[in-house]
């Protein structure tokens, strides 16, 4: 299992760099993984997306569809890409501590 060190803290990740154990996620973990997206500081918009993804995942066990993500957060997808350059699946979900989505987000 690969280990990455972010802000001096080691994390077990999968081959795509996604957090292996979603249970250890917290705001500090999110900030650490945000650095992999080139995000120096998490803004309110970043948190809005991350918290929505997190809550949806905890409730349903999967990531939401992109349309739902945009509708529920009120953000256009183009804006999501501005916030998370790798996009909702590879960027936002990674920061939110979700497993790599297989086809939804």
């Amino acid at each position, binding site marked *: 299992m690969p280990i990455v060190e972010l802000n001096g803290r080691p994390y077990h990740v999968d081959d795509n760099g996604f957090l292996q154990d979603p249970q250890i996620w917290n705001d500090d973990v999110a900030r650490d993984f945000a650095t992999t997206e080139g995000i120096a500081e998490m803004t309110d918009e970043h948190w809005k997306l991350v918290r929505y993804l997190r809550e949806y995942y905890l409730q349903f066990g999967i990531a939401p569809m*992109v349309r739902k993500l945009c509708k529920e957060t009120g953000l256009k*997808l183009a804006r999501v890409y*501005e916030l998370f350059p790798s996009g909702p699946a590879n960027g936002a979900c990674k920061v939110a501590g979700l497993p790599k989505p297989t086809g939804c987000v």
Partner: protein
Amino acid sequence: MSMIYLDNAATSYPKPEDTYVFMDRFFRSHGVNPGRSGYDLCMEAGQLVDDTRRQLTRFFNGTDPDRLVFTYNSTDALNLALFGMLSPGDHAITTTVEHNSVLRPLHHLSQYHGVEVDRVPFDGRGFVDPGDIAARFKPNTRVVAMNHGSNVIGTVQPVAEVGRLCRERGIRFVVDSSQTAGKIPIDVQAMHVDVLAFTGHKSLMGPTGIGGLYVQPHVDIRHTRAGGTGVRSAHPFHLDEYPWRLEYGTPNVLGIAGLHAGVSWLEQQGLAAIEAHEMRLLRRLVEGLRGIPNVTMYCQDDLADHIAVMVFNVDGFEAGNTGTILDVDHNIACRTGLHCAPLVHAQLGLDAIKGAVRFGIGPFNTDAHIEAAIGAVGEIAAARAAKAR
């Protein structure tokens, strides 16, 4: 805003109302197994199958409706043709413009059945030079297989010239018309096409699950499957006579009904009118995207010998991301990625950036759809440009 459908190269949508209505009516009134029994309904269903054979034979300017066989789709048809025409020790020529419906059967034949395969690249404008194909002819060259129109860059290949060269050498010429049948005229005689593969669900305006082959009377394809034909049941082998030779089991009669209605609709509209409409929209689309600085199009410089299919990328942005934003933010349906034609993307250098975004225009697209698409791509491109600054 309702969805703008620009994925017609994947399948046409919507279909003409005639297709929906006829399929519904026919399935309710004649949803029996055609040609298996002697009662009236069965005979009438069989009649529609035969009528559709005649209709499509006419449509492609063939001569023998029994040589028009139905398959599931083009891939199925091409598998029948290639596996039934090539043997160990044979040489086959294809091109890098092909869809996997040709590439994969030939790769399989080369890996497991001792068939040697050459792949001829296209030029900078997206066309295969017939001379480059002829230059690869060898004494054991048995088949040349190529597509008529590219499902990625939209270029229409010079099949008549390739066909002439093949005919001179006695080499069988197999053409994949998935993107062109129903968009531009196809004349198997004038184009020297020995075997034509088509699909029903794209520009022929039928449903998915129906396609076929037209096999010229001077050509034979071995049957590589066997099963029920509805006739001569006591014979232990699959029948050699066409169309049964290449048809196996109960045909997709509902699909054939839809294809019949779709082609009838095309005949009423006229291919020339449909082509003129689609190409006018394509020209406007290409012109509009050309005005966006950080958009790159591929092989769209000259739209002569072209169908209304085009690909592009917003510079520095993966195609899949552009497509997802077009879908979610702008309600525009398109296809991204490698489009089942990996060698086209490889030759264009796009495989490393995960392909391109494809717009496929159909007869029901409008000027407003095209303007919306140009605007949407412009917005995405502007956002990327701003981010890059």
